[in-house]
């Protein structure tokens, strides 16, 4: 099996209060079939064998659907492959001898917990502020009892694809959370089930986003380019309409 040698520069940070730094490692037994996270698993096995602390990184489903994996790989959140979460990135996209710099998602509202792990609970607080709908308790309604035009359903589904990973924040030169928040507001504003809280939702989620300390959106659209679910900044425009509608209509 073909083996690759990689030079890794990885952000190591003991805990939230310690200063961190980039540490270099050389890995000789990387195969192109490995996923990026499997490559880090191999590194950690070597580190543990040597009695060193393994590199902490977030991951869960490793199927690109849970939003848990993160990492800024050579300056791009989720790495160089378009519409791909880090866990779905494979080492065949790198060359033998490459140097790869791996950093955590950077934003004040995403404090580093350890190494490459950041605390993204700011997103949970934004969702709790308004990212919900009222439902009647009791038996589940029959499917398709509320007619929704195909185009609207498609648009809402595009927004609902957001897995809340936070790559939009990491990629934004301003560390703005606008793409995440707009995906949630957009999804629910489009559907009939989202109507009762429509105005309140837009106001409260944006208020909470600002309170968390995310930056303002300058329309660089870098978020759309790194989003593993290809969520469009069209939703940010809708979020702004929703906010103005809630304020003045």
């Amino acid at each position, binding site marked *: 099996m073909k083996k690759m040698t990689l030079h890794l520069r990885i952000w190591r940070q003991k805990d939230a209060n310690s200063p961190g730094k980039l540490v270099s490692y050389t890995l000789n037994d990387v195969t192109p079939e490995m996923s990026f996270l499997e490559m880090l698993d191999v590194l950690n096995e070597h580190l543990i064998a040597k009695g060193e602390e393994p590199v902490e990184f977030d991951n869960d489903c490793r199927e690109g659907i849970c939003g848990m994996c993160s990492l800024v790989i*050579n300056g*791009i959140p989720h790495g160089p492959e378009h519409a791909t979460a880090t866990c779905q990135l494979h080492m065949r996209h790198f060359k033998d001898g490459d140097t790869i710099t791996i950093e955590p998602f950077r934003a*004040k509202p995403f404090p580093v917990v350890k190494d490459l792990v950041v605390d993204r609970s700011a997103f949970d607080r934004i969702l709790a502020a308004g990212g919900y709908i009222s439902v009647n308790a009791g038996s589940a309604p029959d499917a398709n009892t509320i007619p929704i035009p195909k185009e609207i359903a498609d648009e809402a589904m595009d927004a609902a694809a957001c897995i809340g990973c936070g790559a939009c924040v990491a990629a934004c030169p301003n560390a703005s959370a606008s793409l995440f928040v707009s995906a949630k507001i957009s999804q629910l504003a489009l559907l009939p089930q989202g109507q009762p809280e429509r105005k309140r939702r837009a106001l409260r989620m*944006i208020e909470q986003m600002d309170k968390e300390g995310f930056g*303002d959106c300058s329309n*660089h659209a870098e978020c759309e380019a790194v989003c593993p679910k290809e969520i*469009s*900044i069209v939703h940010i425009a809708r979020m*702004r309409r929703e906010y103005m509608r809630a304020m003045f209509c």
Partner: protein
Amino acid sequence: MPSFMSTVRSSVGKKFLMAITGLAMIVFLIEHLTGNFLLLQPNPEPYNKYAHFLLSFGWLLIVAELILVAFLVIHMISGISVFLKKRQARPVGYHVTGSAGKPSKKSFASTTMIYTGIVIFIFLAIHLKTFKYGPYYETTVDGVVMRDLYRLVNEVFSDPLYVGGYVVAMILLGFHLRHGFWSAFQSLGLNHPRYMPIIYGLGVLIAIVLAVGFLGIPVWIYLREVVL
């Protein structure tokens, strides 16, 4: 329901104001450039008459100027606020930065808005001091005594230092508008997949026309007055 002031200060409201004031100032620039094309004529009369016509609006002109100043101040405050908040939002930066490519619109223009904006503001202060509050020459056209602004413009643009400064400032204005125009529509929530490519392209066109137009006038005058 949040108050009006908290709306204005919110991340969405701030950009809304920036967009409206920015677009209004682009409209002013288009008018300004159109009028200034009269400077390209070797005959000073049409330009002086045009400037005199504008001044004849009296208090209406002052109101328009005050509105423009207010728009400029709002635009600047929101811009500086975005810049400061951005620095707070990412106290620790990246060692390696990059762009994921299309559909990103991150560019030299989009990442330097605060700096091009500051240069344009400094330019504007010098520009007003040089012309609006500059030396007052008089001339008589059709028996009417009026300011000979044409003469002042010719004098100023015979100095290669001034011409060079204008060229640099106007190129930076072009970059500012190249991101600013389409971005204003996005900030106002006006993004439709069918029309946005047209607006984006129109932004590039407006940036080039205004930058080349405004830097072309001093270059033309310099060539006419000094070189030829």
